[in-house]
């Protein structure tokens, strides 16, 4: 994610100006700081929302496939089934992600 100025507002690395291409006017430091805070916040919110949706889908599906007679605790078989079921779910997720993105790019 090439992001102008992101994370590099304080280092002295030479910027690419040798070609004479005008870089956008340097943003003022206060604005940059607010921007970076916002980016962190938004990224965290999105990550939390994604993780929540995934946990819910995994729990629902694997509970259905693995727990037939809820006992006082999870048995060894139930534990293994949940592990395997989660692995299957994530493999399906990856497969669908790959195929879906391929279709989107085909138009």
């Amino acid at each position: 994610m090439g992001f102008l100025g992101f994370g590099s507002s304080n280092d002295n690395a030479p910027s690419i100006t040798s070609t004479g291409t005008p870089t956008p006017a340097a943003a003022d430091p206060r604005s940059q700081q607010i921007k970076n805070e916002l980016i962190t916040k938004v990224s965290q919110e999105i990550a939390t929302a994604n993780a929540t949706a995934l946990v819910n889908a995994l729990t629902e599906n694997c509970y259905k496939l693995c727990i037939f007679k809820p006992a006082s605790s999870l048995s060894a078989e139930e534990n293994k089934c949940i592990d395997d079921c989660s692995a299957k779910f994530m493999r399906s997720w990856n497969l669908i992600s790959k195929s879906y993105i391929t279709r989107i790019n085909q138009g």
Partner: protein
Amino acid sequence: MSDLDLNTLSKLDETTKSELNTFIQQETARAKVQTSVTQFTDMCFKKCITSVQDGNLNREEENCVSNCLNRFLDTNIKIVNLLQSLPK
């Protein structure tokens, strides 16, 4: 972290505003795709995975998941076309 309110946002300079805009648009698009993928996986997992022997997808399950997604998208496209061809 300082308070972020509309007043603070309105004081951002133009460069920063446009950078933020780009970021939000990218992340929104990415989040939409991720949400869809999770929904499709939920739907196709229910259809295709009927038992758990190990952590792998066997050939049959893999085909089922792949067909499930692609036929769903075909259906979606067909429905959109149907609606578009309705007399206005």
